[in-house]
């Protein structure tokens, strides 16, 4: 075998703390190495051309590049060696940047380490085999999980791209958090007026199959061929018959049901259509409050329903769908404000969240758009907004910024003045974060035109005094303690991962961070992809986002899906396990442990043997670590390759 080793300086990134020339020089001593060079930027065009030239000039049949992490440029260099006529698996990388030059300044130790890492790459390469991908069919339907604005956008874009879309929404209506907003910043246009038409498009699009009140139960398969089980909860109403007339809501005697859509500001009826623009506009019975379902009598809705749509014995059902790609758009949920005991959230009725305040402002909300405080229904005259409740606070394990609270608080302060002209608003803030088009101008308007008083400092305590709330905080610009006597306090509750997000991530086999937000493949260059092929992210499930960013990411995810579906066949990753039939004793241990069901038992001349289903195998190698006699080997990570690396490092 003839091996070429290329050591990258990466400008001064590697060259600064590793003697790249010496690494190249020393690599000449490794077995089978016939050519070495050091290059300024191996990944640049001249760098890649140099590799191709060297392969041709020296008839190399394998290449090692010592540079950055293979998670970054392995695909780049694989294409390079392929252009030079080699199989792309006859290539190895030594990571001498992230794992060497960037983590220490001792040039001698770094150089020695870089030489050794290059050495083990050579040893592995010496045992590499050319591998070839298999083609398989692709199912060009896409599953979108979550019907908030990001999911709606992704679904519509995919459907407009002529692909069938399965949209799954947990609540009984799509619209997500945006549907609950009164107005949007910085344009102060009506949220439901701009979202409503999109929701209607979803309902009417022939390519979109919407499952509301449904959750993803189980996901099997792999890119191009996912099998999804969807659990549809029982609304106790036959939605094929329900016309959404709302007669049942008028007559329902159980009027103390939890009003989820209105963020529990007030209560609603047990049979309920969350809001007039709901999609689908269908009634749902809350079994916790329905008198018929809890006590066995009542049934008024069933009597009154003009289409006889009420079905009290309806059961939930499991629906199976086959898709080729998945967009996760599960959004966010709000931080639990009762964790700040000193603010009295959950204890004091007039301390509410920003989203609850949106419902009080909204004309379709429980107060018909008149701001009335929850405790006594009085119109508040002094309103205090508290920023960063559950954001940028390590003490509650939420060190991140939720991103959109500064803006919506400014919006709410403006709207408050519009609703109650003789009111005064105070905003306690840490910093104003308004980096968006027209955003900073908007917060300035709140201060300058609308007279909102911004106080830079944290609130330390909120306590009732008579029918007022005393808000005590620091004004760090004045260097004093301030107390504001408020009628209503609105806490800008931070965004956190949606309830159940980690569980969904596990079903999707994607990573999530410690707060439950889904991990993208690369924070800058692959922001909508995940590390699981065929699974994409849109909206706040990846991290708190405002509406424009969520919509943009929804469209971006759709573009990724459409690009995937542009191919008629997909190629598998050939780094899969293969069985050496002679050595297999048919004990079936590999079959038992394989997480993907990718190994089956077959009969070879009366003897049981294992066989890998090549398009199902994901290449984890669990089987290889399980097989006692090493009869099943993961290509490109065989026992012998790993042993060769160990031996190269540990020969005494």
């Amino acid at each position, binding site marked *: 075998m003839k091996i070429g080793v290329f050591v990258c300086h990466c400008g001064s990134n590697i060259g600064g703390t590793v003697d790249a020339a010496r690494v190249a020089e020393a690599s000449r001593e490794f077995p089978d190495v016939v050519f070495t060079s050091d290059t300024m930027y191996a990944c640049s065009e001249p760098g890649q051309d140099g590799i191709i030239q060297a392969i041709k000039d020296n008839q190399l049949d394998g290449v090692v590049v010592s540079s950055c992490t293979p998670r970054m440029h392995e695909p780049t260099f694989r294409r390079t060696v392929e252009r030079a006529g080699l199989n792309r698996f006859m290539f190895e990388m030594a990571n001498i940047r992230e794992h060497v030059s960037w983590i220490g300044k001792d040039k001698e130790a770094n150089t020695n380490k870089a030489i050794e890492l290059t050495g083990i790459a050579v040893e592995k390469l010496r045992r590499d085999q050319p591998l070839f991908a298999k083609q398989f069919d692709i199912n060009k339907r896409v599953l979108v999980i979550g019907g908030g604005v990001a999911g709606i956008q992704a679904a519509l874009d995919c459907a407009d791209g002529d692909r069938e879309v399965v949209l799954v929404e947990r609540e009984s209506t799509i619209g997500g958090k945006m549907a609950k907003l009164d107005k949007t910043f910085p344009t102060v246009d009506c949220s439901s007026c701009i979202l409503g038409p999109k929701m209607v498009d979803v309902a009417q699009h022939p390519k979109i199959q919407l499952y509301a009140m449904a959750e993803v139960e189980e996901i099997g398969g792999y890119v191009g061929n996912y099998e999804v089980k969807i659990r549809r909860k029982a609304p106790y109403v036959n939605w094929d018959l329900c016309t959404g007339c709302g007669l049942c809501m008028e007559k329902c005697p159980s009027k103390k049901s939890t009003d989820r859509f209105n963020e529990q500001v007030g209560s609603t009826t047990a049979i309920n259509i969350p809001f007039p623009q709901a999609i689908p506009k269908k009634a749902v019975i809350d079994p916790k409050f329905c008198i018929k379902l809890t006590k066995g009598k009542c049934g008024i809705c069933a009597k009154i329903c003009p289409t006889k749509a009420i079905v009290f014995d309806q059961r939930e059902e499991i629906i199976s769908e086959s898709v080729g790609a998945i967009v996760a758009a599960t959004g966010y949920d709000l931080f639990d404000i009762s964790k*700040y*005991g000193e603010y*009295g959230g959950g*204890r004091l009725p007039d301390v509410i969240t920003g989203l609850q305040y949106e419902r009080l402002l909204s004309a379709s909300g429980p107060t018909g758009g008149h701001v009335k405080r929850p405790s006594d229904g009085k119109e508040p005259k002094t309103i205090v907004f508290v920023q960063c409740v559950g954001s940028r606070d390590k003490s509650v394990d939420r060190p991140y910024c939720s991103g959109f609270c500064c803006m919506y608080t400014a919006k709410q302060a403006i709207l408050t003045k519009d609703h109650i002209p003789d009111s005064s608003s105070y905003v306690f803030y840490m910093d104003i974060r308004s980096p968006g088009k027209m955003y900073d101008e908007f917060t300035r308007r709140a201060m300058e035109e609308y007279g909102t008083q911004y106080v830079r400092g944290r609130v330390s*305590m909120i*306590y*009732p*005094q*008579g029918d007022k709330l*005393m808000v005590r905080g620091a004004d760090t610009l004045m260097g004093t303690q301030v107390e504001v006597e408020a009628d209503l306090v609105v806490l800008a509750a931070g965004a956190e991962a949606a309830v159940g997000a980690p569980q969904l991530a596990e079903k999707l086999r994607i990573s999530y961070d410690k707060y439950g937000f889904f991990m993208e493949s690369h924070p800058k260059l692959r922001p909508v992809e995940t590390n699981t092929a065929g699974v994409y992210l849109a909206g706040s499930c990846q991290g708190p986002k405002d509406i424009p960013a969520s919509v943009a990411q929804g469209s971006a995810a759709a573009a990724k899906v459409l690009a995937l579906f542009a191919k008629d066949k997909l190629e598998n990753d050939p780094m899969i396990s293969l069985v050496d039939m002679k050595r297999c004793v048919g004990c079936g241990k590999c079959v038992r442990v394989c997480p993907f069901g990718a190994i089956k038992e077959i009969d070879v001349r009366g003897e049981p043997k294992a066989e890998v289903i090549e398009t199902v195998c994901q290449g984890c190698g669990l089987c290889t670590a399980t097989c006692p006699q090493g009869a099943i080997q993961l290509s490109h990570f065989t026992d012998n390759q790993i042993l060769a690396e160990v031996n190269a490092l540990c020969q005494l």
Partner: protein
Amino acid sequence: MSTYAYYPGCSGLGTSQEYESSTRAVCRALGVKLVDIPDWSCCGSTPAHTVDHLLSSALAARNLALAEDLDAAAVITPCPSCLTNLKVAVHRMSDREFRMQVNKLLDKPVDRSTPVKSVLQVLAEDVGPETVAEMLPHKPLAGLKVAPYYGCIMNRPPEVMQFDDHENPMAMDNLMAALGAEVLPFPLKVECCGASYGVARKDIVAKLSGKLLQAAEDLGAHAVVTACPLCQMNLDLRQGQASSAAGHKFQLPVFYYTQLIGLALGVPQSELGLSKLCVNPRLALDAMHAVQAEKREQEAKKEAAKQIHKAKAA
């Protein structure tokens, strides 16, 4: 019930004798067995830890070491300030290095970690308001409106104190409710009373304590209930100063919670020490009795009406 190693604290022998004697009496009545830590010494109070963490912890730890021989379920003290010193010492000594340094200073090293609790925690958790309520079916304090005031250090910092909600504690509320008293939702439960500024800056204490008294009065309280000798002193002894600062005469008796439990349980006056309070406790107790009398009268009327009704029907 287990035995507890009891640490009275210095103020228990001075300014808060009534807290000390009522605590012992209530514990006896509720079956909480106290064994005094032999030869106990000052915990370091407020000055020690401002000067030296090691010496301050050693002062507290000396008492913990002495308590080890008693084989008690916990070391308990009525005073929140002592409690803080003892707990902080335990907390700091969870660091091995620090523990070794402390032990070097002590004749008898600390080698076990006996839990440290307040008497309030023992009454609220180990005895429990349910038990107290069961002992008092006739609800002796019915009609008494109380504002429970915990002070700023009974529950804070939460990672050290590990007791109750640090922003909205309920232990004393629940015990008072068990006696039949009407517990008001006092919003300033954990506010500062001014603490030891009573000596250096009387004006601060007058202002802060005044605020507490005002809030209690606004709620219609007959009395404030405390669990801290210093809080009690600021609110009670300095009520006059607070009144002149506020330009409004407060007349709110300030009880130790153990005095009210003792009163309900029928502990003798000599141990309750109600006579040691500055603001006359009669003010509150009379109000309570008035409410109770009124209620009795109403019930009697109702009963009479019923009798008449029955007689007519007959």
